[in-house]
């Protein structure tokens, strides 16, 4: 474990408010259900979930950094670890495993054995292509973009489609340098 991960369990700190798991799961279910009725096409729903997640992530990252009490990550490996061990713990109360690093350290998988979003859920035949938890991809993408990492995030394994775990593929595209709002000579 890295030094940055050592501070006491952030999910247990009083700063993090909790919500009933069933309420959370069913609320998310209602959102997906509504999107399915509104957009009718599965692909469009997946895209909408991703966009919603992006907007959540872009806001959530500030909250996370304020409460999580972690130090600056030096590389992408560390970032992935923090997401898996601290981020998921704080917001979903589960931890992910980081695995399958690509040789250039730009791509990895977050593996979730347990996912509170999918309790009770079973995909009916009409929704086979639905990536039910796609909102998580959006959240990760949004959050990382706010800390100047452009990423591509997608589900490669989904328990709802019969896989043995949830696997989110996280790919770092580039570090976006921070742009200053003023010019050097001003």
């Amino acid at each position: 474990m890295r030094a940055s991960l050592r501070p006491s369990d952030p999910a247990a700190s009083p700063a993090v408010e909790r919500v009933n798991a069933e309420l959370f799961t069913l609320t998310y279910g209602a959102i997906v259900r509504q999107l399915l009725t509104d957009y009718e096409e599965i692909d469009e729903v997946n895209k909408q979930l991703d966009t919603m997640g992006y907007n959540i992530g872009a806001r959530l990252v500030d909250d996370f950094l304020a409460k999580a009490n972690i130090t600056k990550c030096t590389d992408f490996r560390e970032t992935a670890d923090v997401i898996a061990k601290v981020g998921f713990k704080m917001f979903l109360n589960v931890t992910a495993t980081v695995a399958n690093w690509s040789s250039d350290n730009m791509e990895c998988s977050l593996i979730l054995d347990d996912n509170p979003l999918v309790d009770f859920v079973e995909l009916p035949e009409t929704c086979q292509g639905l990536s039910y938890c796609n909102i998580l991809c959006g959240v990760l993408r949004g959050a990382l973009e706010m800390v100047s990492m452009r990423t591509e995030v997608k589900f490669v394994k989904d328990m709802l489609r019969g896989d043995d775990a949830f696997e989110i593929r996280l790919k770092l595209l580039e570090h976006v340098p921070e742009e200053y709002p003023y010019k050097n000579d001003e």
Partner: protein
Amino acid sequence: MSSTACFVIVSRNDSPIYESEVGTAPKKDEAAHLHQFILHASLDIVQDVVWNTNNMFLKVVDKFNDLLVSVYVTAGHTRLMLLHDSRNEDGIKNFFQEVHELYIKMLLNPLYVPGSRISSPFFDTRVRALARKYL
């Protein structure tokens, strides 16, 4: 010993949302229709009986020759109906209670529309397993 049993779930709007022949007796085509007919006919009796008791399990509400109709009504007025020829009340009660739990899980699935047909193969397998266990 082979037994006949036919299990149907009827939604509050009186449409059947799940049906299965769970008996061990060899299946006959005309029998299936007859079973549906008997169950359908006993819906009226259920409507009367349901207000005379506080229990969800209404026991045997109707008879047709040697076939008996047992009914369990959920709080949401969904009726679980079993047509059977064995007199095993405890087993049937347990069967209904467990199917009720399965049905609740089904309802909690956000992608299932209440009152629509239950097409989940998982539900079907579980119901058949319960039928083998209790009936």
